[in-house]
C-alpha cells in the first residue's frame, strides 16, 4: 500500500536539517544556567555541604525536593504515552514522542540530584558495594533503574521507523541513523515484530512507573517522622507525579509548537483533551491532599500537629497556601471551560501546577525535618546560592538535552501520523460501529 505522505511533513524535518539563530541563542542561555550549576557544584564539592543551607536537623532541602519533583515529571512520558497507546486514544499520535523524551531526560536529572545531595559522590560506590535491601533507598535505586531501562527501550522502539526515514532522506549522520534503524524497511514482518514489542513494553511500563513513585514515597513514609508516616503516600505521590507530568508535557508541547511551528500537528483539541485530564488530576490531587491533612489533624498527635501548624500558619504558610493556589484554585479557574483561548488557559494552568507541585514536594520534605520527632532543636532551612545554582543548572541541563534531541530525531512521530492517516480512520469507524447496537458476531 502506498504511504500517504503529509504535505506538511517537511516541517518535522526542518529542525534536524538546519538550525536557526534561535537555536544558538537558546543553547547560549541554557549554557549560562548550566555554568552556574557547575560552579555551584564545584564549590560544594571542594568545600563540602557546609556551603549549602543543609544543616541539622534539616539534612534534606532543595536537592531531595528536586529529586522527587523531577522523578514525578518523568511520569509525563512513558506512563501517559503507554496509557494513551493501550487505550487506543488516536489523538495521542503527535504527543507520545514528546512525552517519552521528557521521561528519559528527566530521570537522569532526577537521579543526579541524589549524587549532588551526597556531598561526597565517591561514597555512591558504598551503595553499590554494601547496599542493603532493607532500605527503601535501595528500592528506589532498583525501581529507578528499571524505569530508566524501560523508558529508554520504550522511547527507542517506536523511533525505529522514523530513524529509517531519516537514514533514507537526510544526507548527514548516515552511519548513526543506519545503525539505529536496524535495517528497517517497513516489511510486514518487521511491523509485526515492532508492534508486538511496543505493546509488551506499554503493558510493562505502567506498573513500573507506578512502582517508581510509590517507592519514592516509601523513602518518607517508612519512617516514623511526623507527617511522613502515612499509608496513602504511595498513591498520593503517584497522583502528584502524573499531575505534574501532564503539566510538564503541556508546557513542552507549547514551547516546541511555537518554536518549530507545529500548529498543524499540535492542535487546540490536543490541549483541550490534556487540559481535561489535568482538571481531573487537579481534583484527584485535592482529594488526596484533603484526606492526608484531615487524617493528621483529626488524630491530633502532638508531634504531627507541630508540622501541621507550621504548614498552615507557621513559617511555611506562604509555601503551603501558594501550593493550594497553584495546584487547585488556578487550574480550576482555567480548566473548567476550555471552549475559547484553550492553549493560553492550559498553559497558565500548567505553569501554575509545575510551580505548585515543586512547592508540594518542598512542603513534604522540609517542614517535617524542621520539626523532627526526636528531641533535636528545631531548625530553619534557607537555601544558599549553591542550591539555587544547582536547581537552575538541572533545569538548564534538562532543557538543553531536550533541545539537542530535537536536532537529531523528529519530535513528532512521523510514521505514527502516517499510520493514523492510512489505517486509523477506518479502524476507528469499525470500532465505533462495534460499540453500537447491532448483530453480534460471537467469537469463542
Amino acid at each position, binding site marked *: 500500500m502506498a504511504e500517504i505522505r503529509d504535505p506538511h511533513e517537511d516541517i518535522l524535518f526542518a529542525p534536524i536539517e538546519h538550525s536557526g539563530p534561535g537555536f544558538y541563542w537558546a543553547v547560549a542561555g541554557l549554557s549560562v544556567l548550566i555554568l552556574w550549576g557547575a560552579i555551584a557544584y564545584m564549590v560544594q564539592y571542594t568545600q563540602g555541604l557546609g556551603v549549602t543551607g543543609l544543616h541539622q536537623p534539616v539534612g534534606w532541602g532543595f536537592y531531595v525536593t528536586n529529586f522527587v519533583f523531577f522523578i514525578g515529571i518523568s511520569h509525563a512520558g512513558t506512563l501517559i504515552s503507554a496509557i494513551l497507546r493501550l487505550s487506543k486514544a488516536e489523538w495521542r499520535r503527535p504527543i507520545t514522542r514528546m512525552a517519552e523524551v521528557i521521561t528519559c531526560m528527566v530521570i537522569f536529572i532526577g537521579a543526579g540530584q541524589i549524587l549532588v545531595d551526597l556531598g561526597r559522590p565517591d561514597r555512591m560506590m558504598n551503595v553499590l558495594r554494601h547496599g542493603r535491601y532493607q532500605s527503601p533507598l535501595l528500592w528506589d535505586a532498583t525501581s529507578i533503574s528499571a524505569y530508566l*531501562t524501560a523508558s529508554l527501550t520504550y522511547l527507542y522502539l517506536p523511533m*525505529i521507523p522514523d530513524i529509517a526515514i531519516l537514514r533514507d532522506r537526510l544526507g548527514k549522520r*548516515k552511519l548513526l541513523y543506519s545503525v539505529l534503524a536496524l*535495517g*528497517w*524497511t517497513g516489511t510486514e514482518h*518487521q511491523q509485526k515484530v515492532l508492534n508486538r514489542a511496543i505493546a509488551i513494553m506499554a503493558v510493562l511500563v505502567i506498573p513500573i512507573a507506578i512502582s517508581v513513585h510509590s517507592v519514592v514515597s516509601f523513602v518518607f513514609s517508612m519512617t516514623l517522622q511526623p507527617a511522613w508516616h502515612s499509608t496513602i503516600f504511595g498513591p498520593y505521590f503517584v497522583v502528584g507525579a502524573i499531575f505534574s507530568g501532564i503539566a510538564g508535557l503541556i508546557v513542552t508541547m507549547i514551547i516546541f509548537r511555537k518554536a518549530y511551528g507545529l500548529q498543524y500537528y499540535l492542535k487546540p483539541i490536543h490541549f483541550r483533551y490534556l487540559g481535561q485530564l489535568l482538571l481531573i488530576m487537579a481534583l484527584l490531587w485535592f482529594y488526596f491532599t484533603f484526606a492526608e491533612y484531615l487524617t493528621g489533624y483529626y488524630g491530633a498527635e502532638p508531634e504531627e500537629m507541630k508540622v501541621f501548624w507550621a504548614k498552615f500558619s507557621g513559617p511555611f504558610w506562604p509555601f503551603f497556601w501558594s501550593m493550594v493556589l497553584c495546584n487547585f484554585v488556578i487550574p480550576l479557574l482555567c480548566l473548567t471551560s476550555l471552549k475559547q483561548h484553550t492553549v493560553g488557559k492550559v498553559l497558565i494552568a500548567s505553569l501554575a501546577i509545575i510551580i505548585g507541585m515543586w512547592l508540594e514536594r518542598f512542603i513534604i520534605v522540609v517542614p517535617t525535618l524542621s520539626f523532627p520527632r526526636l528531641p533535636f532543636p528545631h531548625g530553619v532551612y534557607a537555601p544558599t546560592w549553591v542550591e539555587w545554582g544547582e536547581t537552575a543548572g538541572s533545569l538548564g541541563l534538562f532543557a538543553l538535552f531536550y533541545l539537542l534531541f530535537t536536532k537529531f530525531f523528529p519530535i513528532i512521530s512521523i510514521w505514527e501520523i502516517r499510520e493514523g492517516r492510512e489505517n486509523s480512520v477506518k479502524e476507528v469507524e469499525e470500532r465505533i460501529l462495534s460499540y453500537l447496537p447491532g448483530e453480534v458476531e460471537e467469537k469463542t
Partner: protein
Amino acid sequence: MEHPPEVSQQLVRRLQWLWLGGAFLLVGGIIVWIIHLIVASWRLDDVIQASVGISIVAIPIFLVFIGVVFYVFWGVALHGGKRED
C-alpha cells in the same frame, strides 16, 4: 550536488551488534549487582528475605526488557526480510 559517501554495511552491522552488546552489558550489570546484594545479605545474615523478595520481582523484569530488545533485533535487523513494492 555532492552525494555523501555510502556507509559500509559491514561496519553498520558490527556497530549494531556492539549496541546490542551494550544493552546486554547494562542489564547484565544490574542483575549481577542485585545478586551481589543477595550474597552480601546472606553472608552477613542480614534479612536475606528482603533481598530475595525484591530480586524475585526485579530480575525477571530486567530479563523481559532485554528479551524484548533482543526480539526486536532478531526480528527487525536479522530476519526483517526485504520489502516488496
